């Protein structure tokens, strides 16, 4: 999609990765918290990008899956289980619940599907709040421990930031693999033209359920990291507004673009910090910026880049054709 030279792309990628490792070494506690939050939210947004951006299934429940993952991790780690085990449980649990939530998508689409998932989101919130024997109810769960990874304690902000960054790296590679695989192609076919997809032997039912389940599982991973990041969870962060935030990250970054969630999460997590000097006006400015962006480019920020590159390609191609044509005429 993006047609820079390959070496340039690799160099750029390495610089960004090195920057993400080295630069935060000087950050204070709060800066590291924000950056860790970016990594965690990117994972959740990547999940939603898979369900919505690639497979075209609208979901307003991604926040609920972050919640499921977070509660799974919080409950297990406060009972002495190691975090990796808790994250495995978070993945399995959110995958299974996501699979079940996929069934309505086999019958309803678009706005109707959005409402079904919205109802699920509310249901999950009520479970977090009311089932206090498990979740601590409105008091939540506190003193969530951070893990020891290969014997290293990650209590301090910097080591835990590396845990989040490392998890983001693993998830990014897995998603990259997935969207390049025949599965990724089938997801896109689901989004573009399910009727044609069926006639080519693509089992649209199974792929729809998989899109929901895998997207939700990534939400679960994000939750499993969110709990030890904040070390305290209650139901409020996992209400509908988190689902809407994640949806906005995907749309603003560019739904269906691999790097969309990275960019969208950066804007959603960092922009409020940069706009802090405006004090009370930040939310208004943010809202206006998002509205203007979506009027200008409904396909998000990466949509602008994609359009620009496509135009350049078309120009180059028509220039080549013009040259070829004039040569032909000279020959004649």
């Amino acid at each position, binding site marked *: 999609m993006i047609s820079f030279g390959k070496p340039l792309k690799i160099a750029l990628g390495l610089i960004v990765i090195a920057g993400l490792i080295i630069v935060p070494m000087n950050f204070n506690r709060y800066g590291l918290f924000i950056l860790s939050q970016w990594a965690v939210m990117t994972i959740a947004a990547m999940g939603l990008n898979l369900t919505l951006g690639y497979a075209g299934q609208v979901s307003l429940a991604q926040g609920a899956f972050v919640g499921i993952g977070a509660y799974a991790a919080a409950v297990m780690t406060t009972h002495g289980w190691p975090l990796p085990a808790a994250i495995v449980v978070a993945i399995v649990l959110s995958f299974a619940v996501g699979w079940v939530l996929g069934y309505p998508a086999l019958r309803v689409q678009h706005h109707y599907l959005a409402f079904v998932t919205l109802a699920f989101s509310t249901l999950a919130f009520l479970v977090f709040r009311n089932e206090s024997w498990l979740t601590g109810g409105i008091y939540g769960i506190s003193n969530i421990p951070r893990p020891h990874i290969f014997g290293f304690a990650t209590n301090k902000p910097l080591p835990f930031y590396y845990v989040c960054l490392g998890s983001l790296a693993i998830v990014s590679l897995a998603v990259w693999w997935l969207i390049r695989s*025949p599965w990724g192609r089938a997801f896109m076919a689901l989004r*573009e033209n399910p*009727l*044609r997809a069926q006639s*080519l032997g*693509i089992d649209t039912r199974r792929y729809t359920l998989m899109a929901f389940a895998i997207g939700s599982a990534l939400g679960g991973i994000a939750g499993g990291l969110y709990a030890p990041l904040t070390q305290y969870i209650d139901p409020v962060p996992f209400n509908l507004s988190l689902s809407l935030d994640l949806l906005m990250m995907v749309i603003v970054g560019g739904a269906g673009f691999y790097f969309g969630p990275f960019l969208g999460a950066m804007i959603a997590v960092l922009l409020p910090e940069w706009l802090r000097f405006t004090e009370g006006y930040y939310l208004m400015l943010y809202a206006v910026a998002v509205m203007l962006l979506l009027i200008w480019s409904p396909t998000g920020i990466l949509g602008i880049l994609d359009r620009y590159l496509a135009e350049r390609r078309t120009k180059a191609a028509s220039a080549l054709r013009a040259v070829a044509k004039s040569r032909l005429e000279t020959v004649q």
Partner: protein
Amino acid sequence: MSAVLEVSDIKKNFGGISAVDGVSFDVREGEILGLIGPNGCGKSTLFNCILGQLTPSGGEVKLDGKLVTGLRPSELNKLGVSRTFQLLQVFPKLSVRENLILAGQEHQGNMASRLVGRSDAGLTDTANQMIGFFKLDHLADEPAGGLSYGQQKLLDAAMAFMGGPRLVLLDEPAGGVNPSMLADLKDRLVAINREKNATFVVIEHNMEFVMSLCSRVMVMAEGKVLAMGRPDEVRKNPAVIEAYLGH
């Protein structure tokens, strides 16, 4: 010759209107059967009933003697039944090659191997051959949405053959295709029919195209079969002239 497809007494009602009203026919192995009739006579509805896109109100469809009525389109495709569409149904954002790989990938391996295996499902060579066969070489890496209408029609047809189907139902393959490209398309269809022993059913309004391509022609009118036979027989049939060709 044995029948690949046997359709018996298929009916399809939409409310009080019966779009297909008891159609029976069979398609012999290796033949190209034409299906003609005035607009709205139920040709496409019949296709959709055979292919599982619509559930017939009555009747049976048999593939190689096995009952397949009510199977989902993806299941039928796995059994070797493929189709093209009347309106363009390519994936516009994917390149021509990606469209073709997508069209064949579900016929390779299983769900697990499609996740962990090669990203092209081992189909790049097959796709390139198909691209060459349909003379789309210079467009292989272009997004399918950027192709001309006729080229997209060719791609649509090429996609139907990626899974190596035994039976292909083509819904107006010649519609909107310019004459020189049409000759190409016919040429390609005949070649695949002979070389791969693929059986075709072709809906078409272009009489010249149908009469020269097909070994038998079935004529439908108002949801019923009006005539069935060799192209020259059908041409002379008074009922057909009355219902269709006479206008």
